């Protein structure tokens, strides 16, 4: 099953490499990984999406917790949560297809952020599955380039991940 794990770690040189190293060293899977400093500049927040059996996920959270620079973590998929990913995607937009692309972007509530006579560059935000659905609606033949940020997540309601 897919899990989204949010991690607060010390914002120190090398901390990220410990997290990434742990995943490859222990044969855990990383699907996406995002990281940036938080409002407290001494802390970074990292979101990793991964998949595995319950036993594997338990090991992932335990092993992450064991890293000295990991301050706190939560498996967001254990409760109600929000997840978002941002994608910038460069699409072929010529001839009669140009209007079709525009309509699809509107349906998915994307924004065209750059234009040439033959290209639309689109920004799209949503759950991973929405971004996947957009690509398949457009058709891979029209996709020139994609860049995705990976998933960020936060718990719904009162729950807060903080020190």
């Amino acid at each position, binding site marked *: 099953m897919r899990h989204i794990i949010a991690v607060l770690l*010390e914002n120190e040189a*090398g901390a990220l490499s410990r997290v990434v*190293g742990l995943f490859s060293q222990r044969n855990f899977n990383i699907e996406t990984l995002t990281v940036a400093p938080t409002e407290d500049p001494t802390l970074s927040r990292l979101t990793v999406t991964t998949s595995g059996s319950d036993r594997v996920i338990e*090991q992932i959270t335990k092993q992450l917790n*064991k890293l*000295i620079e990991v301050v706190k973590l939560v498996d967001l998929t254990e409760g109600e949560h929000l997840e978002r990913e941002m994608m910038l995607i460069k699409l072929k937009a010529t001839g009669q297809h140009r209007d079709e692309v525009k309509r699809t972007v509107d349906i998915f509530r994307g924004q065209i952020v750059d234009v040439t006579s033959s290209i639309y560059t689109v920004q799209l935000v949503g759950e991973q599955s929405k971004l996947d659905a957009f690509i398949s609606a457009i058709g891979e033949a029209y996709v020139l380039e994609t860049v995705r940020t990976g998933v960020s997540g936060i718990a719904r309601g009162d729950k807060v991940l903080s020190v």
Partner: protein
Amino acid sequence: MRREDNSVEMLSGAEMVIRSLQDQKIEYIYGYPGGSVLHIYDALAQQDTIKHILVRHEQAATHMADGHARASGKPGVVLVTSGPGATNAITGIATAFMDSIPMVVLCGQVPSTLIGEDAFQETDMMGVSRPVVKHNFAVKHPSEIPGIIKKAFYIASSGRPGPVVIDIPKDMTTPTDKFEYVYPESVSMRSYSPATRGHSGQIKKAVELLLSARRPVILVGGGTVGGRASAEATELARVLNFPVSTTLMGIGGFPASDRQWLGWPGMHGTYEANTALHNSDLILSIGARFDDRVTNATEKFCPTAKIIHIDIDPSSISKTIAADVPIVGPAKSVLLEMLALLAKSDAQPDAEALSDWWAKIDQWRQRHGGRYVRNENGSLKPQQVIEALYEVTKGDAYICSDVGQHQMFAAQYYKFDKPNRWINSGGLGTMGFGFPAAMGVKLHYPDALVVCVTGEGSFQMNLQEFSTCSQYSIPVKIVCLNNQSLGMVRQWQDMNYESRHSQSYVKSLPDFHKLTDAYGHKAITVRTEAELIPALEQAFALKDELVFLDIYVDPTEHVYPMLVPKGSMRDMWLSKTERT
């Protein structure tokens, strides 16, 4: 640090390294100098409280520090230079990591201005060591040095212990750059707070299970020995009258001469320990981690057993075998709480069920019983050498083993009644570990009997330390079970590869007698049963000399029992021809 006259002490980074180690009450450093650590070595030369042991290869420095730590419980300290000095230390760091041994390794690094430029003797030691350390630090400013060293010792020796590396670029130790020196009195880290006691509810649940068990086994692991909880584990076992098996790393955690001891479990464990575990209804694991050499096929592991798992490291619990009652905490405090609950409880263990269980176990004890067949022509079996060693040392030696058949024989036939006496590389299985580890123990306990049990294969992986022993007069005794082959490899080739002895025969052995002589030590060669005991007695009588006993043993001998691959705990070979 403020002096009495209230002035501030100004030190260079190099001086801070040494002063911090002094303030940490470190007695020995094991190391080897080189370009990047010359400032530190110069500061070392200008004091006399810390003794430095100059090794002949950095791997040996780490094993010496490791042996020292295993025997004393205090972290060992290593000082090496950048590049090859650091990479040579990696095997020893990984060895300590796998067995949860506290160690602090100070590594030189090229000046920070050259990092990343492929400078002479540059290695990314942070990256190289990362998977085999508990933590590592890179010094970014000289004034950080005391704080980092304090944290390193705290991390290395608290929680589940392990090695910590500190990477020190040369320009952090420049003698002319002086900074205020303050050695912190305590450490607090928001991201690191190991458990100090177990969950009371879980402990209560565990005690209820213990009291209702009919076929229990207590499994004492390395965490019992490392966690200094052997006395509590022993008391618990005696209060409950439960059988005890100590893992390879837990040997000595419960007295081997006690009737309740079944031997150790796993690959080459005893028939009774493996069979009892397989048939048990409850396993109380104290600081054991159910590794593959213990469990055999995990899906067939002890099908009727519930598992109470005490461990300081939550990630060791339910990693390979699911625990029914997990307890995260230090073995000692958890066991003390269990003992207190038992003392208060009106309930008693089920005496009748236990008596039946003991009757079964006593039958199983007859089945193999550590038997081996002696040769009639007077040539030696490796097992009898260990039995003789036990007899001559009256069971009171520190036995530092290398890796292979001799390691298994030593663990099987030397009976350890005290913890921290059996010192071996159980997790990583590092050949070449035993000799330097023995040196580290001997330095720490100069009056103790310290023996390295090795084979002619393992010994040659760190024999250069003969020279270090000459320099510092370290009179360890080396018992080399010389079977002229890599015995464990050969055994597997006999069993699984139709005896094709691919590269397991050491064709050109040195004359160990002359070799030992060349370094100024004493060698004794033993070829027959008649020579064995007198040779051992002679060796131990020479208290101030390193003695190398080159003991020729039967090269065809195998280690038994041996778990059948992919089987359960009760599936064993008992001899070359006999299976359960």
